[in-house]
């Protein structure tokens, strides 16, 4: 990663200008040219330094509903419950976390009702309670990782 890569990473995490030739405008800001900026971004995507480049959409526009849920699972049943939870296609992410509530997952469904159906099914199949923690309020989401 050279200085130009770092400049591009720091600048483009904050956003690309909305205009006909955005990469030319970015090039001007970092003292480079359009072709170089595009080539550098291609390289950074290729090597995995960037996981994506483009619009980041609010999950709500996917038309469904989402929630975060947690469970308290004793070690001896953890793998059994993990298997059941992950078997639902509505589970997008699932993490083991170091807490009394040790399994945390995101449920994404087409309708709001389906969230409750999934939770009821998980509780019935595993025998453990699911703590539903839907977001009540979201604050500005904007991570900036300077390099």
């Amino acid at each position, binding site marked *: 990663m050279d200085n130009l890569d770092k400049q591009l990473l720091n600048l483009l*995490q904050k956003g690309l200008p909305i205009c006909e030739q955005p990469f030319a405008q970015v090039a001007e800001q970092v003292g480079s040219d359009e072709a170089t900026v595009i080539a550098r971004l291609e390289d950074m995507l290729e090597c995995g330094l960037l996981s994506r*480049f483009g619009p*980041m959409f609010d999950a*709500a526009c*996917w*038309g469904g509903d989402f929630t*975060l849920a947690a469970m308290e699972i004793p070690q001896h049943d953890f793998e059994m419950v993990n298997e059941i*939870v992950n078997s639902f296609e509505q589970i997008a992410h699932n993490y083991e976390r170091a807490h009394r509530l040790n399994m945390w997952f995101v449920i994404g469904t087409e309708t709001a009702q389906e969230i409750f159906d999934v939770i009821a099914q998980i509780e019935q199949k595993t025998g453990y309670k699911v703590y539903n923690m839907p977001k009540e309020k979201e*604050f500005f989401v904007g991570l900036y990782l300077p390099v």
Partner: protein
Amino acid sequence: MTAITITELERQYIVLTQDGLPLVPKPYHWLADKLAISVEETLAMTKDLLDRGVIRRIAAVPNHYKLGYKFNGMTTWDICDERAQEFGEKVGQLPFVSHCYLRPRHLPQWNYNLFAMVHGRTEQEIKEKQHQIKELLSDVLQTHQGQANDILTSTRILKKTGLRLRNGKK
């Protein structure tokens, strides 16, 4: 969570760009062509989607890990409900916080109502950031049961799949 209403054309916009904006000199020309509308209309639609919050931003999304940000922790806080909105906004504005939400408590198992995900290059950095948040929240921190805050670190990823919009109507 309230669903966002989008038009069919906007839905097409999402389907076309959910994998990314093409790295070509005139990406909105490419998009206009695919949507069969003018470049001006495509740019206006982009700005409108940003204004409405459908698009959060058009940006580079770095791989945390490859940039050296190998540590993250979900910090959780028990703050007084009356001022939760005000202080949630303050925490959300910190640059190292990637997600910040108010969520319901489940007493006695769970007494925290504010969640803030922090990222750092070292474990020490995470602790420092947790401390910064703690100072910011000092006036509103409370304890329903002995502890006012905690940090959830993930010990294992059990499942990770992306959310995608299907091409075509639901």
